[in-house]
């Protein structure tokens, strides 16, 4: 992965379109350009060297060699449009689609579901056993673009791309997923909350690849719900909420996990805002209080489709609705 940096002078007229962000790899190019207008935005990819990886070790070795000049190609459903717009211009593409060891869902350990990074959305949405143990996905997956995109796109690609308006980073955050990362130097694991650090930016170092995501199985007496507001089906969320609630034996809230997409530079964990629910029954008033708390916590920036106030407003609406639905679903698994 790379780090985004924007030389202020060259990009004086910065495009702020939320889905065509400046993912400029070749910063040096900007300095060479000598142009007061930006490089032409045109729609065929720039040339690159293509290597179909034969093994994970080989892929990691290549990435270690090329660093930020290389990108991993998984589903390509975010990377290729960026390359077609010439907003991304990697010198090298390492195609990891052949690495079948990186795809698949491992439920052998009952407590944890391990999903390979190159597992396609399509595989996830057709795996009823998976959806049963990770029900947030059942709600969230249909919101991701359209079937044609889901037939290629991968969960690892999505999470590595780290678009804050995307659904799965919020789901991973709500579920407190663990991200397994490898490089030719070794392996490390960290929480989703540490993984997403900025707009379109993860903590992945130049030589690293997200290889697996571990999701804890739903706790007893829990229910979950993902909801979003988007302009059209499949569009990026103007705001979205992933909620997981578990109840104690008396039917009161025991734990609430709450994460939002679309309202910050990264997915936003607002579980603390739901602290007032712990030990409480589910009442309209209690949920409204949480919604207000969430609204006070977030700082959405607005975009061409929605003002920041509207985003803040619907974040509150969705918080209430998602919590109510999650609560209602407890015990219906």
């Amino acid at each position, binding site marked *: 992965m790379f780090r985004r940096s924007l030389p202020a002078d060259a990009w004086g007229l910065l495009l702020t379109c939320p889905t065509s962000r400046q993912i400029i790899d070749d910063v040096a190019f900007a300095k060479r350009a000598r142009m007061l207008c930006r490089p032409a935005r045109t729609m065929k990819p*720039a040339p690159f060297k293509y290597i179909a990886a034969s093994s994970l070790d080989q892929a990691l070795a290549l990435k270690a060699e090329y660093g930020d000049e290389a990108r991993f190609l998984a589903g390509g459903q975010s990377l290729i449009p960026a390359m077609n717009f*010439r907003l991304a211009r990697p010198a090298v593409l390492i195609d990891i689609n052949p690495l079948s060891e990186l795809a698949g869902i491992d439920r052998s350990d009952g407590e944890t579901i391990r999903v390979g990074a190159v597992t396609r959305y399509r595989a996830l949405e057709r795996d009823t056993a998976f959806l049963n143990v990770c029900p947030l996905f059942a709600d969230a997956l249909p919101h991701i673009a359209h079937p044609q995109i889901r037939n290629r796109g991968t969960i690892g690609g999505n999470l590595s791309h780290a678009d804050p308006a995307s659904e799965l980073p919020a789901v991973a955050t709500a579920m407190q997923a663990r991200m397994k990362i490898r490089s030719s130097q070794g392996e490390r694991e960290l929480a989703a909350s540490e993984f997403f650090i900025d707009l379109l930016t993860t903590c992945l170092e130049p030589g690293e690849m997200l290889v697996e995501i571990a999701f804890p199985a739903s706790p007893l007496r829990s229910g979950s719900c993902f909801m979003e507001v988007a302009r059209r089906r499949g569009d990026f969320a103007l705001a979205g909420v992933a909620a997981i609630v578990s109840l104690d034996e008396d039917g009161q809230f025991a734990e609430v996990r709450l994460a939002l997409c679309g309202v910050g530079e990264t997915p936003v964990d607002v579980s603390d805002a739901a602290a007032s629910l712990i030990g409480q029954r589910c009442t309209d008033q209690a949920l409204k209080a949480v919604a207000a708390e969430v609204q006070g916590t977030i700082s959405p920036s607005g975009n061409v489709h*929605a003002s920041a106030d509207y985003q803040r407003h619907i974040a509150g609406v969705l918080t209430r609705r998602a919590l109510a639905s999650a609560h209602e679903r407890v015990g219906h698994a």
Partner: protein
Amino acid sequence: MTTRFFGAPVKRNEDRKLLTGRALFIDDVELPGLLHAAFLRSQVAHARINSIDVSEALKRPGVVAVYTAEDLGPYWRPGPLLVPPPPIPGIVFNTRTHVPLAKDTIRCAGEPIAIVVAESRYIAEDALDDIAVDLEILPAVVDLEQALEKGSTCVHADLGNNVAAHVRQAKGDYKRAAAKAHLTLKRRFRYEHGISSPIETRGVVAQWDERAEHMTVWDTTQAPVFVRNVLAGALGLGEGQVRVIAPFVGGGFGPKIMMLYPEEATLPWMAMRLNRPIKWIEDRFEHFVATTHERGQIHDAEIALDKDGRILGVKDVFLHDNGAYNPYGLTVPINSQCTLLGPYVIPAYDSTFTSVFTNLTIVTPYRGAGRQHGVFVIERLLDLAAHELGIDPAEIRRRNLIPKDAFPYKNEIIYQDFAPLEYDSGNYEPVLDKALAAIGYESFIREEQPKLRAQGRHVGISIACYVEGTGIGPYEGAKVQVRTNGKVSVATGVGTQGQGHFTSFAQIVADQLGVDVTDVDIVTGDTDRFYWGAGTFASRGAVVAGNAVNEASLAVRKKALKFASDAFECAEEDLVLADGKVSIAGIPEKFIRLGELAQRANPMRGAVKPGTEPGLESTQYFGPPSGATANGVHAMIVEIDPETFDLQIRKYVVVHDCGTVINPMILEGQIHGGVAQGIGNAFFEKLSFDEHGQLLNASLADYLLPTSLDVPRMVLDHTVTPSPLNPLGIKGAGEAGAIPVGPLFAQAIEDALQLKKSGIELLEIPLSPSRVFELIGEGRKT
């Protein structure tokens, strides 16, 4: 003439080719030695060009040539004024047409600066990055009101201001009307129409045959004949040396008729220089800036009414965003000005507009062509007046409709075809009645809405009425020829972008000549097959070309009957023309096939007298004296989520009158498509510019076209009030669906959320959930 096909929902002749992927679209044209062009386009909206250095680009392997304005030499000049201003007294019109490549000044983002020609489009785009352009960036003129303030930057420095045109038209005496009024209402309205965004972008392929001195141009144009004429003149060629072919075109909707686009002007010139064919296909990002837009107007409008809600007069002053150049004249704002009058009796009208130059893409007609803006104003004024006066919105419209005995109805002011606006025929009240019945207006307001509101649901209803001036001149022509195999070939000068000409025109011919509709092949859009014509625009194809096809078919029919009557030595009245043959009535065994007649009409011996032609063919032209006025009513019921402000359309009704209908199936398709674009315009599509004239949402991910989940199933009905202006009685229908959707949304949302009670009015388009939220918030503050 028996009608077997005319008026029937005949399935389309052209479908098989399209369904099997064999129809030829522009990017399917492959030629030996084909080169590819890419255009370096300005990323800034307003700048002076200090220098352009293409030297590095020329060094790139695979690059064959790079051209700038300098290289075009004397070929470089501003394009023609395609539509001069109408002869309106006192008009101010400052002609500033666009140029093939920017020379000293860039006036909008997307304006082309240089062209790279290379062995592939990929390489050509690589080379664009090699070109160094030194610009002095100037402030961009984007806001219409600021553009007219003293001291504003000028889009055209030599003009000294940003006035592209100033037009005032009036009839009656508004001042007097307002003085007598029981109620006058004044509001400011903002209406933005969007871009056409067909699924196929534009493209040009130019091939120069040096030996034959012949130029062939494939072009996604809606006006191949005009392109041929202008191009021939510009290139110094005879018109017979230039062939323009509009192949299958993936949607036109208006902007594919603007000409000459820089790409249309330069590709042929380069092809002559390089002596190799060249292709340019517009990519989607280019389309957002390089193909013309419709955009916005700001109206300060006032209506004067009596106590019964009858309109005494309307006064309107508006600003129109013209864009950087005005080759297409004033079609769009004139349409706004005229169509505001709608189907209503408006005795006094005073309308003034200023068309404003801005540093944005040129504005030319897009489906509706400015009518939307005018319709929004009058429909909203009537809704607001209805509320003030305590009159039902449907009733206030009814009271103002032009009565059916008032036609032809003179509206006096000058229309886009330069003739005084006159509605040829119409019967408006039944259309309103049908629409109200179809939407269940009475029962909704009296029963369903109160019941649903009691359940806490937010449902609203709206109606909107409109007229559409269609079928204007100048003319079209058609050649109909019976071949010796009995099939019929037809050629006409208009192009086709999905309207079904290959079928609808065939239906006309099939009935006149008694052949099967599948035995008629239609060629459109090839200037070698038909020399004369104007093009497909302004909902005129069926009316004008259709009638030309009819005239030519009639002439051929007469010839066939004459030949047969000579052959049988009987009277023409005793003959029957059916099933591809002419026979004697009552004696079916006595027949001659049409193909045989065609053969006999081309004698190997004997004489063909002057004043006649050989063969069974005829070329005829049709030019209506003025446009035919169609009309309609849309009605809609919506439900709104009172927290997210997203909406669902529960029911959508269109009742339409476009006179005689050739093919009801094709007509319905046109209505469906128009409404879909109207829904996009009203609630989804918005061009977002920043203060530098940069389009922030130049992709289909962020410019939101409606999907199958956003466009409802529609209930359609129609009435038929034929036009007296053409023998077939046809009126145009292509734009109708798109025109009144804006006010429909505004009224329905206001009704669903009961906004008028809170004094909140929706006076702008496009709306969106976020915008409605904001307007309610603003309204609550005041």
